[in-house]
């Protein structure tokens, strides 16, 4: 911070130091005192002002800070004699940035650079400002100026990166690349290059223009020696050759790579791709958009080679692989063996496959690596090549091979697990009978128990042997539940995993399965507890939250939901704020390739679909939380700028590009994405789990949800307004239309909302009135139920001020809409509570629908009513007299309040009943679901576990495992399920009670009007 001559910003350093010390130790008051004193001494020092502003900002006094900053800026601009150094400007910059005024910082630097055009330090500051603003063109111009000034390589590369960014992330045309190339060429001719990263940028510029030959020439020239890691250089070389279409040379290079790194799988794929002249590896490399490509596909094109050529190339590949196999003298290099299988697969694709050879290669691989935990996932893609019959045949062969005895017990266990996993993989499970499935669950559990002693001496931090078995047992039990609808299996699945976690509490795989099981059962609070135990933070929130977030969004656990959303949004927003500074760091450290990477990554996160959803859901949650008090709700709406931005978002969503960064690979089989849960539908046999990419489906879903939901804040606001003017105006000017702007805007939104539901405005009205009048079935709303009821609620409040529907059909349909809303709410809500009997036990989504009905449409309607009541109460001097029209609307209002009182009272009672069912009774029904009658049905797995627990052998199992086993109690788990569900009910109950109270008091108020 100190500059030359002991001066800081033109002030003796000893005077400034105490201020910085105070700031660093967060003694802001003290710092401010010093700064004020300093200012008294140096009233015209922009630096002293900047320091004061910095302190004020840290103290949370944003307005004061800004005004001090502005005076400093004013000084800089007007007073020619003041010092304009980077220290002053960068201090100001910090404050401006924190105040969200990047533009002001930039203009300070621009001004300074204009005044001192040859000051490199200031120019770097200016460059940094442009980096923060993502102004790539200005970055480029500034960098070029610096380059001209001092001729340093790094500034040239800053300029080149800025050009690349224009092309990749901005709207710069490809022609710009030619400019960058020219700049580099000229520089290289006179100065050469000195940084490996500079070379990489040079090559990428050429590569982007498809000038592969030029790039290769440079790489093999003197500059090539900048790349110190030989394989890295070879990889680039191979890639360039392949992209240039020189497959033979490229294959030779990849062969070299394989000789250096025989385990390099990617290298082998490239090698084979080049031999077979398949270029799918090379196109679209840069725009590799999906973070999580479906794991079942290795991209490749069917080779165009003539048969003879194909054969000879394949035999080249086999020969190389053979050699690599012979050279690998240890047992960890898998690639050459795995490569054999890939070769067989390619033959298959070329129509020259031989299933038996493929199986042979697989068996060979199994023979060596069958005990490894990754075996099954390694071979998954290859199994897909085989027909179902062949798969079964292969399974038989596999079983036979594994019979040869393995002496190391952990390896033997590994192999047995592999066999079971492969069985699950090839879909055999779906062909088994219920009895056979049960048998296999039992077998796996026994295997687990039998092998526990192997783990006796392991450190608790380490994975135990056979841990995966319990996940597999869970998978089988869930399938049994799906087939039979016998809840006992489902509870048993929970038991198994809880048991596993009792033995070792770190197994995250169990936790993920469990949280989905608990969610499905409606014990969301327990699911959330397990989610928390995964310690999902920072970037994992982007990729892992999907396990819990969708369920939480429709749950009554608002506090937890709010934390989830806020933590996530904070993480993302923090990243967006600091990302540019890190980009600048990459510039400074001359890691140019990272510059591009960082900017692209930020864009990717900015387009995250989950981020968008969270940004819409967080305010909606706030709105839901405040519906019982209209003043609070209005304050919330004000903080949301009355929902205007969200309407814009809804308009734009159709054309926004979205990214999907969630890692879905870790989800359980029965719910491969949050949109899908097979358990909700009937058992469908083998075709259960289509592996196709669900991105399209998810994308459509996100767009739909965001488009609808982001209209809500505005519609709520307008509805409150509309309702509040209606009665009041009525009283004064009989029948007149109140604020026409409000009702016309609301109408536009309603029309859009109807359109999103697939109908014209008037058709939609017909539908809601048809359903409420009993002319249409309750089912017509389908999965859009909540949206339809919202529509009815907002329609009503719109009509209150517009009266259009009265005029439209001549008769008095205005009050009718009140009735429509009342009856719809009543029908759906009461139907839910009468149809949902023993909810403690049943896995159910019904509760969540009920929660939504009460906390969304009903709550919005409650706001409309609060608004009506507030405005109809005599306020101040104006004496009002109700005319005839108002009597009818008043009576509608009264009826509606009464109806809401009734509904909320009934729901409250119902929820209370659910909670009050005695714990014993609930436990009893849970536990009896697993009671084993005879030798079939659920409970068999649990029996094995209980048998193990009751006969613990301390010496076999070691202290730690024995202790853990002793603490196991399946009754505790059952109790946890019951309590978990009750927690969810209790949260909902609180909500219902508060609504009931509110409506009661409204009833009293309205009685006095």
């Amino acid at each position, binding site marked *: 911070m100190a500059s030359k001559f002991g001066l800081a910003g033109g002030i003796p350093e000893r005077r400034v130091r105490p201020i910085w010390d105070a700031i660093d130790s967060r003694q802001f008051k003290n710092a401010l005192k010093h700064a004020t004193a300093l200012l008294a001494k140096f009233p015209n020092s922009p630096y002293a002002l900047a320091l004061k502003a910095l302190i004020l900002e840290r103290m949370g006094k944003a307005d004061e800070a800004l005004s001090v900053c502005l005076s400093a800026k004013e000084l800089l601009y007007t007073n020619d004699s003041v010092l304009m150094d980077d220290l002053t400007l960068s201090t100001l910059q910090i404050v401006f940035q924190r105040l969200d005024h990047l533009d002001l910082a930039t203009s300070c630097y621009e001004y300074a650079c204009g005044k001192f055009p040859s000051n490199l330090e200031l120019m770097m500051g200016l460059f940094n400002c442009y980096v923060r603003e993502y102004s790539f063109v200005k970055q480029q111009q500034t960098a070029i100026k610096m380059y001209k000034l001092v001729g340093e390589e790094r500034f040239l590369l800053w300029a080149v990166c800025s050009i690349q960014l224009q092309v990749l992330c901005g709207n710069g045309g490809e022609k710009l690349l030619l400019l960058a190339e020219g700049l580099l060429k000229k520089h290289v001719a006179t100065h050469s290059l000195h940084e490996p990263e500079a070379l990489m940028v040079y090559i990428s510029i050429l590569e982007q223009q498809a000038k592969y030959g030029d790039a290769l020439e440079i790489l093999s020239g003197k500059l090539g020696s900048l790349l*110190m*890691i030989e394989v890295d250089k070879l990889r680039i070389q191979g890639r360039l050759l392949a992209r240039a279409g020189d497959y033979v040379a490229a294959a030779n290079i990849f062969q070299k790579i394989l000789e250096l*790194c025989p*385990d*390099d*799988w*990617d290298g082998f794929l490239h090698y084979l791709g080049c031999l077979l002249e398949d270029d799918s590896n090379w196109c679209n490399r840069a725009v*590799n958009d999906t*973070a*999580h*490509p479906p*794991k*079942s596909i*290795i991209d490749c094109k069917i080779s165009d080679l003539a048969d003879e050529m194909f054969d000879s190339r394949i035999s080249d590949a086999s020969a190389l692989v053979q050699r690599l196999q012979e050279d690998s003298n240890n047992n*960890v290099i*898998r*690639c050459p063996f*795995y490569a054999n299988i890939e070769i067989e697969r390619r033959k298959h694709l070329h129509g020259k496959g031989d299933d038996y050879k493929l199986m042979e290669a697989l068996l060979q691989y199994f023979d060596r690596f069958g005990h*490894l*935990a*990754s075996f099954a*996932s*390694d071979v*998954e*893609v290859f199994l897909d090549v085989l027909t179902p019959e062949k798969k079964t045949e292969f399974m038989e062969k596999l079983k036979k091979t594994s019979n040869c005895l393995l002496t190391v017990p952990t390896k033997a266990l590994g192999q047995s697990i592999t066999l079971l996993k492969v069985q699950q993989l090839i879909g055999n499970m779906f062909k088994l009978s219920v009895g056979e499935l049960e048998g296999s669950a039992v077998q796996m559990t026994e295997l687990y128990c039998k092998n526990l002693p192997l783990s006796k001496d392991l*450190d608790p*931090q*380490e*994975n135990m042997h056979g841990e995966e078995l319990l996940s597999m047992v869970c998978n089988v039990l869930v399938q049994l539940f799906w087939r039979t609808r016998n809840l006992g299996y489902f509870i048993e699945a929970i038991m198994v995993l809880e048991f596993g976690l009792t033995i070792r509490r*770190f197994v*995250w795989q169990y936790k993920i399965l469990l949280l989905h099981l608990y969610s499905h059962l409606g014990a969301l609070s327990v699911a959330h507890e397990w989610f928390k135990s*995964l*310690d999902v*933070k*920072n*970037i*994992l929130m*982007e*990729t*892992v939250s999907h396990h819990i977030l969708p369920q939480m969004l429709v749950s009554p656990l608002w506090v937890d939901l709010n934390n989830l959303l806020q933590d996530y949004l904070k*993480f993302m927003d*923090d*990243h967006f704020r*600091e*990302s540019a500074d*890190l980009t600048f*760091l*990459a510039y400074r*450290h001359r*890691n140019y*390739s*990272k510059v591009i*990477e*960082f900017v*692209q*990554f930020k864009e*990717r996160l900015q387009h995250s679909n989950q981020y968008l959803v969270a940004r819409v859901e967080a305010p909606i949650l706030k709105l839901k939380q405040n519906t019982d008090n209209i003043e609070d709700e209005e304050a919330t709406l004000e903080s949301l700028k009355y929902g205007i931005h969200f309407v814009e978002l809804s308009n734009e969503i159709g054309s926004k590009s979205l990214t999907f*960064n969630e*890692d879905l690979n*870790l989800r359980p089989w029965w719910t491969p994405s949050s949109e899908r849960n097979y358990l909700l539908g009937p058992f469908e046999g083998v075709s259960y789990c289509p592996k196709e990419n669900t991105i399209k489906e998810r994308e459509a879903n996100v767009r739909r949800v965001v488009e609808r939901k982001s209209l809500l804040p505005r519609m709520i606001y307008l509805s409150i307004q509309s309702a509040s003017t209606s009665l009041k105006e009525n009283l004064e000017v009989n029948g007149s239309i109140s604020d026409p702007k409000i009702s016309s805007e609301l109408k536009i939104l309603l029309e859009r909302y109807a359109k999103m539901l697939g109908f014209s405005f008037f058709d939609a009205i017909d539908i809601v009135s048809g359903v409420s009048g009993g002319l249409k079935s309750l089912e017509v709303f389908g999965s859009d139920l909540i949206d339809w009821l919202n529509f009815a609620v907002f329609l009503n409040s719109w009509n209150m001020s517009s009266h259009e529907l009265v005029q439209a059909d001549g008769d008095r349909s205005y009050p009718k809409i009140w009735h429509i809303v009342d009856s719809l709410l009543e029908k759906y809500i009461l139907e839910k509570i009468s149809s949902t009997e023993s909810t403690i036990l049943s896995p159910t989504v019904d509760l969540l629908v009920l929660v939504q009905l009460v906390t969304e449409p009903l709550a919005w309607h409650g706001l409309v009513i609060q608004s009506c009541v507030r405005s109809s109460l005599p306020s101040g001097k104006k004496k009002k007299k109700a005319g005839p029209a108002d009597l009818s609307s008043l009576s509608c209002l009264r009826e509606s309040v009464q109806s809401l009182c009734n509904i909320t009272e009934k729901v409250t009672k119902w929820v209370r009943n659910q909670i009050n069912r005695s714990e014993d009774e609930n436990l009893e029904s849970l536990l009896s679901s697993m009671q084993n009658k005879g030798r079939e049905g659920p409970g068999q797995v649990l029996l094995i576990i209980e048998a193990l627990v009751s006969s613990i052998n301390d010496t076999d199992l070691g202290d730690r495992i024995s202790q853990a086993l002793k603490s196991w109690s399946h009754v505790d788990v059952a109790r946890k399920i019951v309590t978990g569900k009750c927690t969810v009910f209790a949260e909902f109950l609180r909500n219902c009670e508060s609504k009931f109270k509110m409506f009661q008091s409204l009833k009293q108020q309205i009685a006095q009007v």
Partner: protein
Amino acid sequence: MTTIRRFCCDDLLRFASVNLDHLTETFNMSFYMTYLARWPDYFHVAEGPGNRIMGYIMGKVEGQGESWHGHVTAVTVAPEYRRQQLAKKLMNLLEDISDKIDKAYFVDLFVRASNTPAIKMYEKLGYVIYRRVLRYYSGEEDGLDMRKALSRDVEKKSIIPLKRPVTPDELEYD
């Protein structure tokens, strides 16, 4: 069956199955990005078939004079790929870069005193406990500072163990 390459930002979106491990810390973004921006050659990822992430190593090079050294900030391998010499490979890579490219004197790392598996591994890879750092991990658990000398430290001076434990504020680098 591993391709080892430089770690890039997109890998952050794919490393969940590695980072859900309770001993693997998920740092904030600026931490990862600072490493990427400053020491990209010390941050490598291992990918298996189907582009699955198997594990990664993250580190840096720093220090003055004879304490110019490579540092392992994190090394981790997904459960299903453990005990296949992957961590060893990643460690060797970092040591190689410290040794040959940056000409460092030694490589060091901190490990939780309770993380026995990792300590065993480091010992197997030739690291020795140089000193104990009291309450290094969030003021609770002790850390072990382990070191391995590189070729430039001919006399292996850098790894002579200290007699007494130190506190975190006595550390030269964090």
